[in-house]
């Protein structure tokens, strides 16, 4: 399941639902990204996306993950629009028989979302709005998965 979510979402409800769907899985890895409020006076993150194209691109990355690891399921929820500080902005969870497949696929998908999915991210603070590009570290993380 791949979901672009314009509203607040509860990642734990998603995780719980996902685990019910993937009953046979021994291993469930997950990652939750939260809008950090520890810098300047950031108030929110705004996520722009390309309707239709973004969903299709993420589906492609999910299919790649399913080709590379023996997954029993995955779920990706990504906020779009404005997400206030302290709220989850992304959830990736993967299920497999064994933990390495679940961990690696989850890690791969997060690296993909950070640098290669059609999203554009703006920090909204008291000082104004700033569009954020990935850090060099994000591109380096993503490059780990090149075949």
């Amino acid at each position, binding site marked *: 399941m791949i979901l672009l979510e314009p509203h607040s979402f509860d990642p734990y409800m998603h995780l719980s639902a996902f685990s019910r769907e993937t009953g046979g899985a021994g291993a469930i890895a997950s990652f939750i990204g939260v809008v950090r409020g520890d810098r300047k006076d950031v108030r929110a993150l705004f996520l*722009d996306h*390309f309707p239709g194209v973004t969903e299709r691109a993420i589906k492609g990355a999910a299919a790649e993950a399913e080709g590379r690891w023996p997954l029993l399921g995955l779920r990706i929820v990504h906020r779009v629009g404005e997400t206030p500080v302290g709220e989850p902005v992304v959830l990736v969870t993967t299920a497999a028989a064994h933990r390495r497949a679940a961990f690696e696929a989850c890690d791969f998908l997060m690296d993909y979302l*950070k640098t290669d*999915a*059609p*999203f*554009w*991210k703006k920090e909204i603070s008291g000082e104004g709005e700033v569009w954020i590009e*990935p850090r060099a570290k994000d591109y380096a993380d993503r490059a780990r998965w090149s075949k």
Partner: protein
Amino acid sequence: MARLLFFGALGDAMGRERALALPDGVATADALIAYLCASDPVFADAFRRTKVKLAVNESIVDPEAPIGDGDEIAFLPPFSGG
């Protein structure tokens, strides 16, 4: 008319969407960018600040890709999600 879409920082600078009658001689993605840079200082400035990829009818294309009337042409700054 072509339909131009602008995302991220470009969307803030240019507006989300414009209709444009492609002038004669503007038949590739590259030529469109050159035309916009020459005719619109706001675009030229925004384009200088960031690397931009183009999608024609929802597929990312090379700079020499052909474009024409009726196409949807999207201007995509570097992706940044999560």
